[in-house]
């Protein structure tokens, strides 16, 4: 007889790990032949005398039991070919049993697969949520930051910055930007911010706004602008970054989870500490394209409300697009100046016509006070 075992037999008097045996399927049952030295004796088990079920660690083994009391024997079949032969030969009475056994196996496998599937699904879902929902989470977190925190944060960075730069304390340039800011601030409904504007001596053609309403205008911008309305356009854009809290959104994004947690637990010092670590990076925050567009659109509406000729803003963009090769620093993060000008024109057309009121200052005089005429010579 063959000496290769294909099944294990369990029962009283047999080894705990099972007695190896060789099982074949006959017309009316199984024939079991012990392999090696074992107390097991050769037996033929009729289909009518046995019961079957699924078993084993993975429920992938066919378990055949027969006998009563101390003589109960249990056979574990694992070989797929043997199990298939058994299913072909077994009578329909036993088949019902078998089908139930197979169904049990399928159910167990299915539930395992479903469990793994849902575990993977949860992980992937969380990943997608973080990936695509990040903006929503950030917006939600920013909406929870009290304005006082924002002001404290902005002021800290503002003072740090001004202490290192040559600030123009007074003169026509300072009063000009203050006039622009005041006119616009007066038209902002429910404005929680008190805007503070400083003029800093620098050739950089730029202006920036820190969270909390702290605005810095560089003399480079004022020298480049052809009218006060152009500077007011840039200012309006920057003020709207503050009003829309774009800066806070960027900060929360950059600081990530730590910031969200500090906001959640109300840890103001923690948030400011984190922001200070970023230091002056705040001042050079790059906004996203969506944020820029939003600040453009709300910016031109604010100009219109404040009766400041909004075409100054448009003209500034148009001149930028002509000189795009020069890459004026303010707009280096968004090269589409021409497209922006077009969008603003469309936006302006939709706004109710306002009669612009001129500024009290004369732009030429402001520029002269910055030494433009000497520079041109």
């Amino acid at each position, binding site marked *: 007889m063959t000496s290769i075992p294909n099944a294990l037999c369990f029962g*009283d008097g047999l080894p*705990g*790990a099972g007695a*190896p045996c060789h099982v074949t399927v006959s017309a009316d049952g199984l024939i079991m032949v012990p392999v090696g030295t074992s107390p097991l004796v050769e037996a033929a088990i009729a289909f009518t005398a046995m019961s079957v079920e699924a*078993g*084993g*660690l993975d429920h992938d083994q066919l378990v055949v039991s027969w006998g009563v009391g101390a003589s109960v024997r249990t056979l574990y079949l694992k070989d797929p070919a043997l199990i298939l032969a058994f299913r072909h030969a077994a009578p329909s009475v036993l088949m019902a049993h078998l089908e139930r056994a197979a169904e049990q196996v399928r159910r167990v496998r299915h539930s395992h697969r479903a469990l793994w599937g849902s575990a993977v699904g949860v992980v992937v879902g969380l990943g997608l949520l973080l990936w695509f929902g990040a903006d929503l989470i950030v917006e939600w977190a920013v909406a929870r930051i009290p304005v006082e925190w924002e002001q404290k944060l902005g002021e800290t960075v503002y003072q740090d910055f001004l202490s290192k730069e040559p600030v123009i304390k007074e003169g026509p340039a300072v009063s000009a930007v203050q006039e622009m800011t005041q006119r616009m601030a007066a038209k902002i409904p429910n404005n929680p911010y008190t805007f503070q504007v400083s003029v800093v001596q620098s050739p950089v053609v730029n202006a920036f706004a820190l969270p909390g309403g702290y605005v810095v205008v560089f003399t480079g911008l004022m020298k480049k602008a052809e009218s006060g309305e152009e500077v007011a356009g840039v200012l309006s854009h920057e003020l709207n970054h503050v009003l829309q809290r774009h800066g806070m959104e960027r900060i929360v994004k950059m600081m990530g989870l730590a910031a969200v947690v500090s906001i959640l637990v109300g840890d103001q010092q923690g948030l400011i500490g984190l922001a200070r670590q970023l230091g002056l990076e705040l001042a050079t925050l790059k906004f996203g394209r969506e944020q820029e567009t939003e600040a453009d659109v709300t910016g031109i509406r604010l100009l219109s409300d404040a009766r400041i000729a909004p075409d100054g803003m448009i003209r500034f963009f148009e001149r930028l697009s002509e000189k795009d090769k020069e890459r004026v620093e303010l707009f280096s993060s968004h090269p589409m100046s021409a497209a922006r000008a077009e969008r603003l024109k469309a936006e302006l057309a939709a706004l109710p016509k306002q009669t612009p009121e001129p500024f009290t200052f004369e732009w030429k005089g402001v520029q002269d006070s910055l030494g433009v005429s000497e520079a041109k010579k």
Partner: protein
Amino acid sequence: MKSEILYPGAFPMVRVYLNEGETVKAESGAMVAASPTIDIESKMEGGFLGALSRKMLSGEKFFFQTLRASRGAGEVLLAPTVPGEIVLLDLDGVNEYMVQKDGFLAGTEGVKIESKMQSLTRGLLGGEGFFILRIGGTGRLILNSFGAIHKIELKPNEEYIVDNSHLVAWTSTTTYNIEKASSGWIASLTSGEGLVCRFRGPGVVYIQSRNPGSFGNWIRQFIPVSE
């Protein structure tokens, strides 16, 4: 090929006699000494990816070493890293053992080793990780333990409860479920048992008389902390 356990008890070694051309596969680093006729090969069982998955997933050694009696018969002495007993099991092609990582010491030619993924609950809670070794084929399998090895024989449908960190190996005809040691979670944790495995026969379960994790925690208190 013959093998025997030397110095049975806490610090045993296995002596494996190989005829010319025979090989034995051992846990990397298990060889203590060998005849000059024996060559040591490093072999990645199941190919590179198989070895990689075994390493990454079950935390088993990346390489097994294969000791081959290529220049005539000889003997090899093998020993595990941790103090503890060794057990020799004969595989006849039909019986199969699930072995927790670290349990495998060596196997002769014909012994097949593969990583097996456990179900989610068993993987998370069983304490053996998501992957264990499924060892079948024919030949002699040599397992090692931490402490003494105790064999539990289970009749069909007979149950036994084992603290999961004491598991070494069990036959594939044996099923098990993870459950709390006591009826309540608090009691389960405070009893120091946490989660246990309820095994159901038929089959054999090998357990070790010491718990490596607990021993590690205990010994940590004596290790000076350098600043």
